[in-house]
């Protein structure tokens, strides 16, 4: 006989995976639009964002519904983690939209002549997102744990790039507007990496029932 509860849990999982693939696509496209100065692609990312927002609402609804049936143990963890991951995915979508907006604006202006480590940083952020979602699909706790330290490298690159841009703006004031766009875009990438780290922490909780958030603070106290 069918286990209706199990069906509900699986449906939740599937929805989450679908949302994840949309979010991942949005990040990929926004970075691509930024790098290749693609106006059309940037617009597309913006219009897709509402779909991602809709997913978050749907998933929260499904999760609440499942909670009324008092799930326990791994089911309970899945439901609460699903709500958290969907929130992180939604923010990732928002940040991708911000990058797309900056990409759109930058594509209308002549490029700034400065060599930034941006592609490298974008690549790291993208792979963090991909890896965190993979670890959720495969319930691979070790893989999820491995993602967490990578966030530091992304933060460091973000700092570096901001510093470079700041210096450039001071040296060539006519590039200020464009450099500001780049600063915002880079910041968004850094945030995307943060959210990917959050997702990885949730995956660890799902698999191990261990809450490893804010570990740096704990270690300090």
């Amino acid at each position, binding site marked *: 006989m069918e286990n209706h509860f*199990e069906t509900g849990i699986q449906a939740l999982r599937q929805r989450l995976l679908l949302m994840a693939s949309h979010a991942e696509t949005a990040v990929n496209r926004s970075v691509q639009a930024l790098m290749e100065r693609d106006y059309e692609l940037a617009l597309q990312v913006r219009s897709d964002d509402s779909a991602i927002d809709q997913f978050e609402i749907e998933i929260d609804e499904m999760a609440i519904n499942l909670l009324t049936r008092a799930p326990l143990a*791994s089911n309970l963890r899945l439901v609460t983690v699903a709500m958290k991951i969907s929130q992180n995915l939604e923010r990732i979508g928002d940040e991708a939209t911000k990058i797309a907006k900056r990409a759109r604006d930058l594509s209308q202006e002549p490029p700034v002549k400065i060599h930034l480590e941006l592609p490298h940083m974008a690549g790291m952020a993208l792979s963090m997102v991909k890896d965190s979602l993979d670890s959720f699909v495969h319930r691979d706790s070790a893989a999820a744990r491995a993602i967490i330290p990578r966030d530091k490298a992304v933060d460091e690159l973000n700092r570096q790039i901001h510093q470079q841009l700041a210096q450039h703006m001071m040296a060539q004031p006519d590039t200020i507007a464009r450099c500001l766009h780049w600063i915002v875009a880079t910041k968004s990438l850094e945030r995307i990496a943060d959210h990917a780290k959050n997702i990885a922490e949730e995956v660890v909780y799902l698999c191990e029932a261990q809450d490893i958030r804010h570990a740096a603070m704990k270690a300090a106290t």
Partner: protein
Amino acid sequence: MAEIILPKINALQTRPAGAGPGEPLIKINDLSLFYGASKALKNVSLHLGEKVVTAFIGPSGCGKSTLLRCLNRMNDLIDNVRIEGSVSIGGHDIYGDNVDVIELRKRVGMVFQKSNPFPKSIYENVAYGLRLHGMKDKSELDGVVEQSLRGAALWDEVKDRLHSSALGLSGGQQQRLCIARAIAIRPEIVLMDEPASALDPIATTRIEELILELKKDFTIVIVTHNMQQAARISDYTAFFYIGELIEFDTTTRIFTNPAKRQTEDYVTGRFG
């Protein structure tokens, strides 16, 4: 045989009253029970703490009620029952040679699945145990009866009809009367065998609230087939399957992240 220590409770969780490391009140050691040739309990070892609520869960026929009834020797009533291993309460082996079963049952009370008030008045029901153990003075009896009915959250509903028949009460009220009757003689431990399973949801909630109050004064062991109930009211949970203890831990652990696959499967409804 490895000493079983009460699992430590995470400091961030609410600390159950009276729990924690220290001498457990009930020690069940390698207990096996036989109905004739059939082994209903298989080498169960378990330590239960004082003034906490411990829940026994598991599918039908797993032995949880049988184990409960070992704790006040109600299994003695059944022909052909044989016990191996030991159960000690407060340091004394209750299956020892010189044990007075009457005294044991004064210290270990029981509430049953189907409420069973005597066909007497409400007052006489609660006073039954008191009279049994020698209390005669009317004012003393009155006082303890009132205290017990208050303790069972029933006083306000029956104070004006103490001498009317107990059988006139609703199902939920009758069960609370049985609880009042059991706690009147101030046992240390109260055993409850699915106390709310025959009641409607509102009556069930009242019984659950009552149990949470009672654990301030009594050690409670409850058998339940309702996992959410165990999750709501117990501090520790023991999961049984076909006569064996599969896992014993804090309730939070059992219901958020059980260690054994079998427990996980049962708790998430994949079997049983």
